[in-house]
C-alpha cells in the first residue's frame, strides 16, 4: 500500500515546488501544496496513528503492572542477556536501513538492495529471537492465559513482532522490485525512505519496550 506514489494526475510530486505562492500566470498541474511528497506525509500521519496503537498496548501493560494474581513475574522470566543481543541486532538494522536510503539517493540500486536485504535479515533474526523467547517463557509456565502479565506481555510484544514481520515482508518486496526493475532510480529514494520511516519507528518502539518493560524491572 505504502508504495503507492501516484498523485491523482499520476506524477510524482515535485518536492520543493511551492504551488501555494505560484504566480498567477502559471498554473501547476501538480497538487503538492506543502512541498512534501504525499507518500511521506501519509507515512508520518500513519506513524502518528501507530503511536496511539502502541501507546495503548504499552499503557495497558503498565496499567496492569504488578497486578497479576499468579506467577511467574517479569523479573523471573526476563533474560536481559538474550534480549540485549536481539535489541542490538534490531538497532543495527536501523543503521543498514539508513545506509539503504542513502544508497538510493546516490542512485546505487544494487548496493541499496544489499542493505535492504541486510536490514530484512537482521529484522528476521530479531523475530527469531522473539519466537525463542516466547517459547522459553511458555516453558517456564507463562502463557497468554496465566496472568495479566502473560496477556499484556505477549500481546504487546507480539504485535511489535508482527510489525517487524510486516517490515521484513515489505523490505523483501522492495528488494524483489529492485531486482526485476519494478523500482527504478527515480522512484527508489522516496519509496525506500518511506519503508525506512516505518522501520525506524518500529525500532524506536522496541527501544521504549526494552527500556521500560525489561530494564526497569531490574532497578532496585
Amino acid at each position, binding site marked *: *500500500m505504502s508504495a503507492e506514489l501516484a498523485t*491523482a494526475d499520476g506524477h510524482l510530486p515535485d518536492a520543493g515546488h511551492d504551488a501555494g505562492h505560484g504566480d*498567477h500566470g502559471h498554473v501547476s498541474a501538480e497538487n503538492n501544496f506543502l512541498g512534501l511528497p504525499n507518500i511521506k506525509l501519509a507515512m508520518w*500521519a500513519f506513524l502518528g496513528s501507530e503511536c496511539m496503537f502502541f501507546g495503548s498496548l504499552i499503557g495497558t501493560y503498565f*496499567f496492569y503492572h504488578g497486578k*497479576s494474581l499468579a506467577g511467574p513475574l517479569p523479573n523471573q522470566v526476563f533474560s536481559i542477556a538474550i534480549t540485549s543481543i536481539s535489541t542490538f541486532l534490531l538497532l543495527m538494522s536501523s543503521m543498514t536501513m539508513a545506509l539503504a536510503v542513502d544508497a538510493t539517493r546516490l542512485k546505487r540500486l544494487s548496493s541499496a538492495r544489499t542493505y535492504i536485504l541486510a536490514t530484512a535479515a537482521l529484522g528476521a533474526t530479531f523475530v527469531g529471537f522473539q519466537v525463542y523467547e516466547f517459547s522459553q517463557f511458555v516453558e517456564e509456565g507463562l502463557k497468554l492465559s496465566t496472568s495479566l502479565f*502473560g496477556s499484556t506481555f505477549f500481546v504487546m510484544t507480539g504485535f511489535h513482532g508482527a510489525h517487524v514481520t510486516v517490515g521484513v515482508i515489505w523490505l523483501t518486496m522492495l528488494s524483489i522490485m529492485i531486482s526485476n526493475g519494478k523500482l527504478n532510480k527515480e522512484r527508489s529514494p522516496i519509496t525506500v525512505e518511506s519503508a525506512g520511516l516505518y522501520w525506524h519507528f518500529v525500532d524506536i518502539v522496541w527501544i521504549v519496550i526494552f527500556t521500560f518493560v525489561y530494564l526497569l524491572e531490574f532497578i532496585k
Partner: protein
Amino acid sequence: MASVADFAQAQAPVYHQERPAKSGLVDWLTTVDHKKIGILYGSAGLFWLLIGGLEALLFRLQLAKPDQDLFIGNQYNGLVTMHATTMVFLAVMPMIAGFSNYFVPLMIGARDVAFPRLNAFSWYTFLFGSLVINASIVFAHFPAGGWTGYAPLSTRAYGNDGMDFWWAGLVLLAISSMVAGVNFVVTILNMRAPGMTLMRVPVLAWMMLVIQFLLAFSFPPVAVGLIFLAFDRTFGAVFYESAMGGDPHLWQHLFWLFGHPEVYVLILPSMGIVSEVLPVFARRPLFGQHAVIFSGVFIGFVGFGVWGHHMFTAGMGPIADAVFAATTAVIAIPTGVKIFNWLGTLWGGKLTFPVPMLFAISFIPMFTIGGLSGVMHANAPLDLQQHDSYFVVAHFHYVLVGGALQGLFSGIYFYFPKITGKMLSEGLGKAHFWLFLLGMNITFWPMHDLGNRGMPRRIFTYPADAGWNFDNMLGTVGVFFMAAGTLLMVYNIFTSMKNGKTAGRDPWDANTLEWMTESPPPAHNFDFTPVVFSERPLFDHKHSEDLAIPVPHEAEQIHMPSYSWKPLVVASGALLVILGLLLLNLAPMLWLISVAGALTVVVGIYQWVTEPV
C-alpha cells in the same frame, strides 16, 4: 460579470487512463474515482440508516406500553446494540465518508484524493465490516453487549455469540477509518489548488480535516481494546477476567478514548455542512469564518481529553473526575462560538428557505438543546444522578439526530444537484423536514422527563405504575413521524434522479469550487486547475472582472488513475484474516483461512504497487 458557464472551455482537455475503465458492474467494483466511491459510501449509509431506524422502531414498539413482551431479554438488548452500532458506524459515519469522498477533492480543487486505490480499499473494508457485524443475525444472534461493548459484559462468560461478529466487524471498520483518515489528511493538506491557503479551505473541508485526524488517532485505542477482547474470547487471554485481577476500567478507558473523539467525528461534518449552507441562503459570507475553523480545531484537540466524563460513575476518583469535568465544560466554549457565528451569519441576511436551509436552521436550536444538556453532564455530581437514565438518551439523540443527522440531511438536499445534476423535489423535502422535526421532538423531548422521573436506559420493560406510560407512548409515536419523513426522502431521491429539474452547475448561486464544474462533475473534476484568491473562489469568479477567465490548461492530457481490482483483493484478504479468527471457535483448523487471507494481502499488495496506474 462572468457567468459560471464561461468556464466551460471550447477546447477542454481530455483525460486519459492507462487502462480505460470498463462499464457497468465491473466499473463500480473496481473504481478508484472519489466521486463513485463517495456515492457508494453514501448509498450504503442511507441503507443502514433505514435498517438502524427499523431496529429502533421495533424496540420502541416494545416500550410503547408497560409490561409488553414483544422483544424481551437478549432480543431487546440485541436490537438496542445493533441500533446504536448501526447508526454510529454504518449509517452516519459512511454518510460522512460519502460527503468527504465526493466533495473534499472538489472543494479544494483537486482531481482525486491522494491515494485513490487506498480509498477504494477503505470502502471495501467498511463494506465487509458492516456485513460481518450484521451476519451475526444469520449465523448466531445479534450482539447484545451494548454498542459500548463494556467488558466483561462482552466477554465469553457474559456476552453472547454475536459479540464475536461485533468485534470482528469493528476491527475491519477501524482499519477502514484509520486508512481513510491518513488518506484524507494528506489529500486536504497537500492536494489543494494553487492559492488555496489553509484559511481559504472551505469550512466543510476543514471539519473533514479535523475528523480525519480524529479517526486516525482515536481508532487505534479502541482497536487495541477490541484486540484484547478478541484474545480473551478466542485465545483465553485474561485482559478482562476479574477473577484474574482484570479491571473493568480498562475497556472503558480504551473505548472512550476512542468514543469521545468519535462523537466529534459524527458532529463536526454536520457543523461544516451548516457552515456551507447558511451563507449561501443568507446571501452573506460566513460570519467569523476563522473563528468557526479554529473552534472546530479546538474541539478536535480537547476532544481527546474529555473521555472520562463517560465514566464519572465508574469510580476514577475525585481528581480525575474534576479534570474531566473541567475539560468537558471547556468544550462548550468553541461550540458556543460556532453557534453565535451561525446566528451572526443569519443576522441581516436576505434569507430564503429551501429544504437545505430549513434543515440547517433547525440544526442550530436542536443541537443547542442537546449541547446544553451536555454541559449539564459535564458537572460530575449532577452526572451521578443522570448517568444511565433516559435524560442521557435524550441528550445524545438531540445532538446526533437533531444535530448530526439533520446536518447530513441538509447536505443531501444541498449537494444532491451536484451529484446527480437533478434537483430534489422541494415539496417532498419540506414534508420530510416537518415530519422529521416534529417526530424527533415528540420522541426525544419526553425522554428528558423520563430521565428525571428515574427511568433507566437499557431496560426492556417497566411497570405500569411507574409514571412512565405517557412519555413512552409519545416516544413510540414520534418514531413513526421520523420514519415517514426519512422514507419520503428516499422516495424523493429515487424519483428526482429520473424526473427532477435539471440543476446546472450552480443551482444555489454558491461560493465554493465544487459548484464551478459540471453537475455531475466529469471524471477529472475540472478542465483546468482552479486558482484561488479568497475563501470564496467561485464568488470571486462570478463577481470580479479581473478573475473572470482562469488560465486554461494547455492542450495537454490529464492523466487519471485506472480502475483496479487490487483494493478489493487486499480487502478480501483482510476479511479472510478476520473470518479465520472469528471461526476459530468452531474448529481449530480454520486458522488456515487466516493464513490464506494473509497471503492474499501480501500478494495483493505486491501486485498493487507494481501495476501501472
